[in-house]
């Protein structure tokens, strides 16, 4: 099983579930899917090719949309599953039913980008401070931080 045959099998078996699949570099498969097909595609990849290792989930602020990339890998190759979600209703499905360990990454996405992860088992904040104001998402490109004035001990 090499990356080329995996790509061909993906394009043949789940053609109706994905939008686009390609090989961007040796041993790196890119797959674009719709939001509602994400869990089905991940379950297929896990079952068929043992893509059981989720390296991370990364978010990307593209302006109009947020792109969410799921970095999966197995013994021979890695695959990046990409979904888009509009800024006006930033909802993504939880993948914890397929990969339970994704919970930490999903909670981080909620903290940092303000994405709404639907059906997440545990929606509590993860990384930001306890007194962090609601509705502030530091990794969004349009987020502005007002730095508090610094105290100089003993005056100037």
């Amino acid at each position, binding site marked *: 099983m090499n990356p080329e045959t995996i790509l061909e099998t993906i394009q043949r078996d789940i053609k109706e579930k994905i939008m686009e699949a390609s090989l961007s570099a040796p041993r790196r498969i890119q797959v674009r899917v719709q939001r509602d097909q994400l869990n089905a595609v991940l379950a297929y990849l896990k079952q068929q090719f043992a893509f059981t290792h989720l390296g991370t989930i990364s978010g990307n602020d593209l302006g109009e949309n947020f792109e969410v990339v799921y970095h999966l890998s197995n013994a021979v190759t890695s695959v990046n599953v990409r979904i888009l979600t509009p800024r006006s209703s930033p909802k993504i499905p939880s993948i914890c039913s397929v990969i339970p360990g994704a919970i930490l990454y999903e909670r981080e996405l909620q903290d940092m980008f303000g994405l709404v992860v639907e059906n997440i088992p545990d929606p509590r904040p993860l990384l*930001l*401070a306890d007194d962090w104001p609601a509705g502030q998402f530091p990794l969004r490109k349009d987020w502005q931080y007002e730095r*508090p004035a610094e105290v100089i001990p003993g005056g100037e």
Partner: protein
Amino acid sequence: MIERLVHWSRVKSPWVLHLNTGACNACDIEILAALMPRFDLERFGILLKGTPRHADVIVCTGPITRQNRDRVVRIYEQVPDPKFVVAVGACAMSGCVYRGAYNSCGGIDQVLPVNAYIPGCPIRPDALIDGVVKLLNSVK
């Protein structure tokens, strides 16, 4: 007479609390190295204590993170008077590369009154000994 005895024992045997307020652990490792037999801070009577209630000096490493700020103040309030704060490392002095970040409050002096600053990234154990001895001399 009693006052002189208390003062003498305070200068000759300051007990320190090692407090990580958000450091990367490099300064903490150097502090531990300073407490070990090779550098031997104990020859100045300096003992590491596990609780703020027994300590005279708080040795703080790292910038104060936003999550940590209230907890650091609470620990500071538990230390009996008179108390001294030593800011150890570049981060504890000014916030260093974390200065102005959304989850950092900057150096220790933004939250607590600091008595001594020890520069370095990480500090050398010799620098820590030098700083603490200077602090004790200023208390004398």
